[in-house]
């Protein structure tokens, strides 16, 4: 099976309007046909943190019924066997350490991103 490293570099891009992160959604939809792994970089490392339900948004009386819950989406990916990692240095810039992250997420030093890329057939950078 073809292996794909999905690198997500921007978190919370239109997630409220989409009720999802489109890159994470795409990775999850492809995970049955491809061997997908996910690397969170930049602001996307925040997807590995927190488990509280997202706040409810309502505009002009119209609620967003299914707000994006990205830490839960990441946990679901891990439960399906997707390897999910985050860049240590990017997490540090947000004041996060390994204790901040949910179960199953692996820290990766920035210098080892190239090793991850080399270990996969394809790299998709979102």
């Amino acid at each position, binding site marked *: 099976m073809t292996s794909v490293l999905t690198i997500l570099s921007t978190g*919370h*891009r*239109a*997630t*409220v*309007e*989409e*009720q*999802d992160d489109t890159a994470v*959604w795409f990775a*999850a*939809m492809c995970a049955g046909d491809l061997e997908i792994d996910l690397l969170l970089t930049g602001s996307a490392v925040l997807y590995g943190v927190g488990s509280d339900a997202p706040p409810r*948004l309502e*505009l*002009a*009386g*119209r*609620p*967003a*019924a*299914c707000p994006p819950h990205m830490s839960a989406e990441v946990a679901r990916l891990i439960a399906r066997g997707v390897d999910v990692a985050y860049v240590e240095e990017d997490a540090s810039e947000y004041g996060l350490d390994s204790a901040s992250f949910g179960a199953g997420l692996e820290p990766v030093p920035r210098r080892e991103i190239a090793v991850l890329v080399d270990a996969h057939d394809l790299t998709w950078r979102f």
Partner: protein
Amino acid sequence: MTSSLNLLIMDPPYESERTTTAFRLIDAALARGHSVRVFAYEGAVNLTMAGQAAHPNPLHGTDVDAEMHPTTREWVERLFAVAGGRLEWVNCGLCVDERGAGDWTNGPRRGGPADFTGWVTDGSATIVIPTA
């Protein structure tokens, strides 16, 4: 004391969180009794396109009804509904033409930069939320 808020927005729908921020500002201003004037520039003219439709989420197993996906078109319609005549929305005509975005929902009208210059010189507050 109530006043007017002018907002220039540029992002197309479903591309950033800036649109949600703009909608929240509009909603909050209207809720406090203010009037709001929106100049939708560039990709923001697509926010009001009539053909926007909600979708299911096959990843979550939710159908259209359960997902209740709020389109930007619907949110603009809701803002007009609660505004009671205090919301004015102008879609930049040239931006509309080049995007083929002329079929929009009830409420917005076609205009141009002259509308915006008229607003910003009457003493009301103005916020520009540019695209990245």
